[in-house]
């Protein structure tokens, strides 16, 4: 499946005539079982694509919410091997929802790139987003991943100008992740008009679907941004809610239910989005 599963999902969204909802959660947050419950419930709540964060001690592109989520997971013993185990369990009951691993390179490098790709593929991973691997470092992981038919999803940012875009898009597959602001995850909301213009610019360079993320927190924002893109990504808002619920002592299914309820409102947002993008 792999890249094909992502392609199929975006094709289906296109046929439905609506933008997709991409939801990010950190693996093992606040603990392994609870995080499995959360992730397992996401498709029914309306997530079209799931990004699973691989915790790292030094997440230099993340804001406080995702930093804290990673530390909660690490404190409870999360490892990359356990994250892949989580993916395997998810795939036992869901063959359709694309799963993308997102994180930083060192845990993967430490695991060993060939072994990681074999295990990730076997577990049912469709794509990778590795924040600290720009196109200049493609031989590290991007090219070997493509050989295994695992999508390598690139981040494009406001600083990625027209001259650089073709380089950035060269080995990108699955979809392009447009980071709507210069900054870290969980920052202020992006300006909708600027996002529309940026997506249009990306579309001049690629046929791939464009998902827009960073700073989207509410159903209204998801609808607005989604209206200008192929998908809206929500991460910090969901992860903050997991943090708050965990702080109240919730775990397992009760925590997952609360998250699902929130994700359902986001999903309703993107389903009501007015398409302005082609």
């Amino acid at each position, binding site marked *: 499946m792999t890249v094909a599963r992502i392609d199929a999902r975006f094709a289906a969204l296109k046929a439905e005539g609506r933008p997709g909802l991409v939801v990010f959660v950190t693996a093992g947050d606040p603990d392994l079982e609870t995080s499995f419950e959360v992730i397992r419930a996401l498709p029914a709540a309306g997530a079209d694509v799931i990004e699973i964060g691989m*915790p*790292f*001690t*030094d*997440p*230099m*592109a993340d*804001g*406080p919410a995702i*930093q804290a989520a990673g*530390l909660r997971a*690490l404190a409870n013993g999360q*490892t*990359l*091997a356990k994250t892949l185990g989580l993916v395997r369990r998810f795939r036992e009951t869901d063959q359709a929802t694309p799963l993308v691993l997102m994180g*930083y*390179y*060192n*845990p*993967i*490098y*430490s*695991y060993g790139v060939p072994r990681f790709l074999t295990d990730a593929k076997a577990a049912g991973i469709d794509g990778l987003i590795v*924040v*600290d*691997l*720009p*196109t*200049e*470092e493609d031989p590290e992981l991007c090219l070997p991943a493509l050989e295994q038919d695992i999508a390598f999803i*690139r*981040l*494009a*940012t*406001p*600083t*990625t*100008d027209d001259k*650089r875009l073709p380089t*950035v898009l060269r080995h990108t597959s699955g979809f392009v992740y447009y*980071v709507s602001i*210069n*900054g*870290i995850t969980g*920052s202020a909301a992006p300006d909708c008009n600027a996002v529309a213009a940026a997506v249009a610019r990306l579309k001049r360079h690629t046929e791939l679907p464009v998902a827009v993320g960073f700073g989207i927190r509410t159903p209204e924002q998801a609808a607005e941004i989604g209206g200008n893109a192929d998908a809206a990504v929500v991460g910090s808002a969901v992860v903050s809610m997991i943090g708050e619920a965990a702080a109240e002592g919730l775990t397992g299914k009760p925590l997952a239910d609360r998250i699902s309820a929130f994700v359902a409102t986001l999903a309703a947002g993107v389903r009501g989005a007015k398409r302005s993008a082609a």
Partner: protein
Amino acid sequence: MAMAPAQTPNSYREGPDEHGHFGIYGGRFVAETLMPLILDLEKAYEDACKDPSFRAELDYFLEHYVGRPSPLYFAERLTDHFGGAKIYLKREELNHTGAHKINNCMGQILLAKRMGKKRIIAETGAGQHGVATATVAARFGLPCTIYMGKTDIERQSPNVFRMKLLGAEVVPVTSGSQTLKDAMNEALRDWVTQVEDTFYIIGTVAGPHPYPAMVRDFQAVIGNEAKAQMLKTEGRLPDTLVACVGGGSNAIGLFYPFLDDKEVAIDAVEAAGLGLESGKHAASLAKGRPGVLHGNRTYLLQDDDGQIIEAHSISAGLDYPGIGPEHSWLHDIGRVNFVSATDQEALDAFQLCAKLEGIIPALESSHALAHVARIAPDLPKDHIILVNLSGRGDKDIFTVATALGAKL
């Protein structure tokens, strides 16, 4: 894990390649937002290197503002005390602001000015790099924000106040271990947020390419001067170079001009903290393995899952779980011999140098002196050791007082 081949290159001074690699180390492992900036910086630095007026301006400020050249001093009393090798100190502690850090800051601020940047940021551990950055920012009239771990703010309070006096904003970093590595994460986060107008002055030979090479080049003034001074004083090169390594900027600054002088032995001293077997140290080469952090591949202290382990050293400037990528390469090919010294050995050397030479060395530099104390006694009297006295210890007196049980 891939290791660099153990071949001897024709020259040890040719790195990095155009992708910023020293063997398998180095590189540009940063978020896409930063990539265009790093490419701009690389180009601006290359242009500056070709422009004689840039070098001339830098030399002017190094002489008249920093106070270079720094003396090469024969430490007669330490030499007599150990009764073996002849010990010379390269007096970087006499520079304006009290350490080698300003050599690099001066280079980078002139580059920032040349690139039209409007705002300076930096990370700091001991506060020496923060003070040096705040100093040049004041001198060139640019606003400056310094990221510093909360733990370091507590143990280096004099430097925090110094930075504030110089007009810098000091931002306490409360994430992670609240030390240098977290300050660097936070500075990188600031940089991705304010990419357009901000210049990030990295304080050591780490970070993404071109920083490791650029910082080395700015610090190489130490070794270039020392080489000329030694030839003038002794008529020959030293036999052994010694420097402490945190990120490795004072060390590479001294070593680089000597790398192809095969007869010169080179010892670099990592911080062994409470001991290499205690798990509380900052010896990334002795106890780490290759990984990727802060923009480059290098030896890192990390667990089996690739999570970074917090370092420990009595000296905040060495308290970092990584090391510059060029050092990792020099380690693998065997050109530099990496050793370590504990907190206690550094404290002993600190006091010895103060009492015998009337020089209070930085705790960082005391690690280099501690290694000298180990090797000098058994070396012949005509063996010359050249030590980089990278900074002065005024900033450390509170830490040392606590360690010695003295009340101030």
